C-alpha cells in the first residue's frame, strides 16, 4: 500500500465545529510534519513532530511512531482554516519526505 495514507480526502465543517485528520504509515516513521496549503498554493508548516503531541492555538497534532499514525485536530473551525492539509513523514535520516494525498477542508459559514 501507500507509504502514507491520509484521510479523509475531503472534509466540510461548519464554523465552530471540531474535527480531525489522520495519516497512517505503512512503516515506522522517524518524524511527521503537517502543512496547510492555501488557494494560491502557498504551503505553511503547522507542526513538526518526532514524537508525542503539540498544540498551537486551535490546532493539535499527535504522532505515534510505534502505532504508525499521526493526527491533526482542528478545534472551533474558522473560515480561514479552509485549504488543503498535507501530512508528510520521514522514515529515517535521509532527507526524504513522503507526502500524504491531502485533505481538502472547506469551512462553511
Amino acid at each position, binding site marked *: 500500500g501507500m507509504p502514507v495514507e491520509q484521510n479523509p480526502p475531503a472534509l466540510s465543517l461548519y464554523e465552530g465545529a471540531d474535527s480531525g485528520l489522520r495519516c497512517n504509515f505503512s512503516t515506522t516513521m*522517524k*518524524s511527521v*510534519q503537517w*502543512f496547510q496549503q492555501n488557494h*494560491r*498554493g*502557498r*504551503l*505553511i*508548516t503547522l507542526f*513538526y513532530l518526532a514524537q508525542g503531541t503539540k498544540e498551537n492555538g486551535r490546532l493539535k497534532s499527535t504522532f505515534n511512531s510505534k502505532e504508525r499514525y499521526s493526527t491533526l485536530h482542528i478545534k472551533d473551525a474558522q473560515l480561514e482554516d479552509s485549504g488543503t492539509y*498535507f501530512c*508528510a513523514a*520521514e522514515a529515517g*535520516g*535521509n*532527507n*526524504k*519526505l*513522503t*507526502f*500524504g*494525498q*491531502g485533505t481538502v477542508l472547506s469551512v462553511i459559514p
Partner: protein
Amino acid sequence: AQTIHQWPVAEIKAVGSPLSLGCTIKGKSSPNLYWYWQATGGTLQQLFYSITVGQVESVVQLNLSASRPKDDQFILSTEKLLLSHSGFYLCAWGLGGRSAETLYFGSGTRLTVL
C-alpha cells in the same frame, strides 16, 4: 529573518524548450534545500535535495536536474520540457543536517507546458 524567493512566479513553455527555475534563501547559512513538484490537484513529490554547495541528491528525476551553485541558491532545470512537467514547483529550505526537519516553502512556480 529568513526569506525564500522563487522565480519566475509562472511560466508557459512549449514542449521541447528548456527550463530554468530558481530559488534563493536569505538569512540562513548552509540550509538544506529541496525541490518539490505538485501535479494539479495532486500531492507533493520530492524531486531533489541538497545539504551543501555543489551537492545534489536526486529522489525522483522526472527528466529534470538540479544544481546548487551557491550556498543560498538552488536551480531546477531541463533542456527539453515534456507535457508531463506541467504543475506547481515548490522550493523549500530546512534547518540542516540529515533530516528534513521543519520545512519552509517558497511561494512556488506554476508551469504550463503546451
